[in-house]
C-alpha cells in the first residue's frame, strides 16, 4: 500500500506543477464584532429557537415545572445523565417529582431500553451565530445523552455562549478530542416528499436550559 501512496503523491506533485511547497493559506476571517455577553446570549436564544429548539431560562422552580411538562407531553418516562456531570444530575433528580420519571443510565438505554427517554448533559459551548450546542468527548465525556435520547436537554451556562463558530473551535479543538459535535435543533429529515419531520435518528426535541 505504501507503493500506491507514493504513486498517488507522484501523480499529485506532477499535477500541482512543482510549486515551491509554500502554501499561501488564507488569512483568518477578520473577526466580525463579537457581541458582549448579554447580546451573545440574546442572539443565542433567538437562533436556538429559530432552529427548532426550546429554550428555558431561570428562575429554576418555574423552569423545572415547564421542563417537566414538556417532557411529559413527549411521553418521557425515564431520565439519564453522565455519571460525572453534577449539573445534569442535580436537574434530572430535581425533575423526578414533576413526572413521575424514573432515573436510568446510558448503558441501559444503549442496551435497547423501550422507555421514552430524556438525556441530560452540560454543553461545552453554545454558539450564538447558529443556535448550536457543542459537545465533545474531551476528558472522557460521553455523547450518549444527545445521541440516544428521544429528548435532549442541554444545560448551557451563559458564560459558555460564544459569538461565532471560530471561537468555539479555537477553544474546544485544542488537543483535538476524538469527537466534536455541533448540535442545532432536533434531528430532522425531509427525505419523504420534502416534508420536514423531526426525530429521524437523534432527539425529536432539543431543549436548552440557560443557567446563570
Amino acid at each position, binding site marked *: 500500500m505504501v507503493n500506491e501512496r507514493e504513486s498517488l503523491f507522484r501523480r499529485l506533485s506532477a499535477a500541482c506543477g512543482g510549486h515551491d511547497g509554500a502554501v499561501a493559506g488564507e488569512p483568518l476571517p477578520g473577526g466580525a464584532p463579537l457581541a458582549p455577553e448579554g447580546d451573545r446570549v440574546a442572539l443565542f436564544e433567538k437562533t436556538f429557537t429559530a432552529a427548532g429548539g426550546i429554550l428555558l431560562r431561570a428562575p429554576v422552580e418555574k423552569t423545572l415545572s415547564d421542563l417537566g411538562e414538556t417532557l411529559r407531553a413527549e411521553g418521557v418516562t425515564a431520565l439519564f445523565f453522565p455519571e460525572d456531570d453534577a449539573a445534569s444530575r442535580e436537574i434530572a433528580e430535581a425533575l423526578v417529582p414533576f413526572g413521575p420519571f424514573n432515573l436510568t443510565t446510558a448503558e441501559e438505554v444503549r442496551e435497547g431500553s423501550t422507555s421514552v427517554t430524556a438525556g441530560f448533559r452540560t454543553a461545552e459551548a453554545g454558539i450564538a451565530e447558529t443556535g448550536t450546542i457543542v459537545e465533545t468527548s474531551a476528558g472522557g465525556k460521553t455523547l450518549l445523552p444527545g445521541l440516544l435520547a428521544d429528548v435532549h436537554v442541554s444545560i448551557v451556562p451563559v458564560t459558555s455562549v460564544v459569538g461565532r463558530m471560530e471561537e468555539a473551535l479555537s477553544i474546544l479543538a485544542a488537543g*483535538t478530542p476524538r469527537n466534536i459535535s455541533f448540535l442545532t435543533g432536533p*434531528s430532522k429529515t425531509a427525505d419523504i416528499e420534502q416534508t420536514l419531520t423531526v426525530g429521524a435518528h437523534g432527539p425529536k426535541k432539543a431543549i436548552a436550559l440557560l443557567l446563570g
Partner: protein
Amino acid sequence: MELNANAFGRNSRKALLDKTLQEALGRTTGRFQAHRDAAVAAFPEFEATRERASRIKRDVLDHLDTYLARFIAEAEKRGTIVHVARDAAQAREIAARIARDEGVTLAVKSKSMASEEISFNEALQGAGVTVVESDLGEFIIQLAGEAPSHIIAPAVHKTREQISRLFERHLGEPPTDSIPELVGMARKHLRAKFLSAGMGVSGGNFLVADTGSVVLVTNEGNGRMGTVLPRVHLAVVGIEKVIPRMADLPTFLRILPRSASGQAISSYVSIVTGTRRAGDPEGPERMHILLLDCGRSAILEGKYREILKCVRCAACLNACPVYQSVGGHAYGWVYSGPIGAVLTPLLVGLPEAAALPDASTLCGACADVCPVKIPLPDFLLELRSDAREQGLKTPGEIAAMKGYAGVMKRAGLLEAIERIAGVLGQFFTKGKGIGGLPYPFSGWTERRDFPAPAARPFRKQWKIKRGARG
C-alpha cells in the same frame, strides 16, 4: 454503480413520461430553490464567504500534494489507518479487506456519494457483509433496489404511498399515509442496526489537514450514530475534500447547508479525529480512512481542475432547468445535474459520457448558485468542444453547427432565412409550434418542442420597439 450516461436522451424521455417523478421533481426542486434563496438573502455575508470558500479550495487544489500529505500525517498520528485507492476496483478490494480483517458482518452506512462511485455496497456484500443504508432516503431506495436520484434527497422520486408499501413488504410494518409514522418506523428499525453493527461507514464532507479530522454534515444524525456507536469507523472520501485548517471549517459550514437546504447550519456537524482515547466511554476502537483517487489526480492535472472544488451541495441540480425536467436517474451515473454533466465525463472518460455536456441549456443558473464559484457553463462548453475534437460528435451535428455559424456571420443571409422561415413556419404549423421534424433534423425535435418561427423576426421587432421609444 453501473454507467449508463450516454443513454441520456433515452433516459430523459422515460423520465419526462413518468408522472410520479414529474410531480416529485416539481415539488422538490422549487422548494429547495426557495429555501436556498431565502437563506442566502438572510445572510448578508454570503457573497464574501463564498468568495473566501472558493479561494481556499483553489489554494488546496493548487497544493493538494502538500495538504493531503499533511492530512495523512496528522490522521495517522491520532491512530487512524489511512488507505489509498487508485481506482474503483482497488477501492473495493481494500474496503472488503478492511471489513474481513475487522471481523465485521453488519455495517451501517451514512450517505456517501464517493462510496457510490466505487459500488461500495456490492464490494462488502461480496465479502459476506450486510450493508444497511441509514440515511432515510438512501434506506428507502435501498429497499426499492434503486439508485439515488438527488445528491441530498435521494428518494425524491418516491411518494409516501410507495414508501409505505416498501416498509410493509420489507419491514413488516402496517400501511400508513402519515410521514411521521413512516419516519418512526425507519428510526426504530435503523436504531437496532446502529446498536448492533460492527462497523459504521461514512463519507466525509471535509478532511481537515492540520488535525487529521473527518467532518460529517447531516440533519438526521445518522453520521453521528455511525461514528460513535460501532467499534470500527470507515470513512470513504475523495482526495479533494481536504481543507487546510480547522479554522477554515466555519467558512464552509456557512455556505454548505445554506446552499443545500436553506438552513443556516445543519442539525449535526461531527468532527471526528482518530480512535477512542484512553478514558473515553465510547467511540470506535479502530478508524480507517479510504482515500479515493479514482480519476481525480488526472482532473487536477488538466483544465478542469476547479471542478474539484465542489462541496456536493446540489444547489446546481435544483437550479438547473434540465435537471428540474428529467431528474437524477437520466444522467446515468452517481452524479447528476450540471455537476454530474461535467464530473461524470471527467471521472469515467468522455467517450463513456459524451452525451452529458449536451444536457444543458447553458442558461448559467448553476454558476449563479454554486457556493464555490465553479464555472460550470464554461466547462460544459469546453467539454462539448473536447468531444468534437475527439471525434465523439456525429458528422451531421458538426455540419449543422458549421452551417449555423456560417449563417450567423452573414446578416443579409440571416435576414432572408428569417423572412422565409417566418412565412413558411406560420403556414405549416398554423402558429402552434414544431413538435417533430423529418430526418436529419429529427435528432433535434425528438425530445424538444420548438415554437414556430415568429412572423416578424426578433431583430425587426427590436428595431420597431426601439423606434417607438425614440
